[in-house]
């Protein structure tokens, strides 16, 4: 028989997995919308967004009551602290995915631009990092955390390069300014999703090792990424 706090923490873990999966599905829809693949109906996307918001509030409520009633310490304390932060990050991932879906509708000649600036790769990598983030929370696998840090760095570099090229294109061809600007915004959103995933990985690392690594630069993270593929 588990203790009361164990029941609450189990409940919390279940909700985080659920909200993580919902955000992951929103990111998948966002990538589809960007790559002009068939997407779920707007109503469905909105419904999931509402569910994410409700679960985010639910997580806050559980954390508040665990703090007030159980005074968690050690690994329990780290889990609760991380849960509050992770839920916040996931909720933002959901919002950014919605924004990408909306912006994607306003990009003319989207397919040509996406091919020209190699955006498909970036979008697929963002999908991957979202999946890996849910996986790392579930398995608490440190090597997955390392993979997330590396992937985030790649996404950032490739996105920077794509934005640079899009700006140059807009400078030389004023007809591409509207679409180019929207595409830059979408790329920035994709980057932010990747950043939020990295933040989640950092909280998972904190949960496992009781060591705070946020705000450390990628190369400075006291984390062995050398042996990862």
């Amino acid at each position: 028989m588990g203790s009361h706090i164990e029941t609450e923490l189990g409940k919390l873990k279940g909700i985080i997995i659920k909200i993580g999966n919902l955000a992951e599905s929103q990111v998948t829809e966002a990538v589809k919308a960007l790559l002009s693949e068939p997407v779920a109906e707007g109503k469905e996307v909105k419904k999931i967004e509402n569910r994410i918001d409700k679960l985010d509030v639910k997580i806050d409520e559980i954390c508040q009551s665990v703090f007030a009633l159980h005074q968690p310490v050690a690994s329990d304390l780290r889990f609760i602290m991380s849960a509050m932060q992770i839920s916040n990050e996931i909720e933002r991932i959901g919002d950014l995915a919605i924004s990408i879906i909306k912006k994607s509708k306003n990009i003319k000649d989207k397919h040509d631009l996406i091919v020209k600036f190699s955006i498909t790769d970036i979008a697929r990598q963002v999908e991957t990092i979202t999946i890996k983030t849910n996986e790392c929370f579930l398995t608490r696998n440190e090597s997955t955390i390392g993979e997330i840090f590396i992937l985030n760095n790649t996404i950032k570099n490739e996105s920077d390069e794509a934005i640079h090229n899009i700006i140059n294109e807009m400078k030389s061809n004023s007809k591409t300014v509207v679409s180019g600007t929207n595409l830059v915004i979408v790329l920035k959103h994709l980057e932010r999703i990747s950043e939020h995933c990295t933040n989640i990985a950092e909280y998972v690392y904190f949960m496992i090792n009781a060591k705070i690594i946020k705000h450390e630069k990628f190369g400075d993270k006291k984390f062995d990424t050398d042996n990862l593929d």
Partner: protein
Amino acid sequence: MHKIESKNINFYYGETQALHDVSLSMKENTVTALIGPSGCGKSTYLRLLNRMNDLIDNTKLTGTILIEGEDIYAKNTNVDDLRKNVGMVFQKPNPFPKSIYENVAYGLKVNGITDKKIIEERVITSIEQVALWGEVKDKLKKSAFELSGGQQQRLCIARALAIQPSILLMDEPTSALDPISTSKIEELIYELKNKYTIVIVTHNMQQAGRVSDTTAFFYMGELIEYDKTKTIFTKPSQKQTEDYITGRFG
């Protein structure tokens, strides 16, 4: 030099070994919390520090306990002097059936202080130290039993302080008190830390977290882990400690 230094302590009640090879040192002007489940040896360890276990028959101690560098179990140790230096407060308030004033003055008188002026000064200072003066100054001649449980406990602390110890041992000092009285005692411990070295046995994890600088976790007579309180409650190194403080023990 540590204020209290115990090395390889083994202690037996008859055939039963209550402490196994415990080595523990405490710095001056710090608060150390001793935690662990009932019967783990924390109170036994505490009582060794002012030789209270000497009063129990058929006990045996091996190892060394040094206070200010002196072996308190050496043959030439004056136990009365030791207990003057190492005061103790118990779980339940235990005032004497005397007036509030006499409760605090009693220890001074039995220790040979006869100068009324000195006694009065010490009584007032001690009662002030425990933040009780405002509550009792107009009824010093009344019986100590007229005070609330929390006030009685603070009076007992004042009684211990009056003989000017440098170490204060507290054996679950708030377990019989309501939350407000508990909070006052905890504030008091925080204040007293500047002048005294305090060792407190507590079953209340949050209290250990709030009042102590270092925490020692005992289990089945062994010292499992001893570290800064912050470390014990955020990242204990031993699984047994983690299980105990998170309530997953046994």
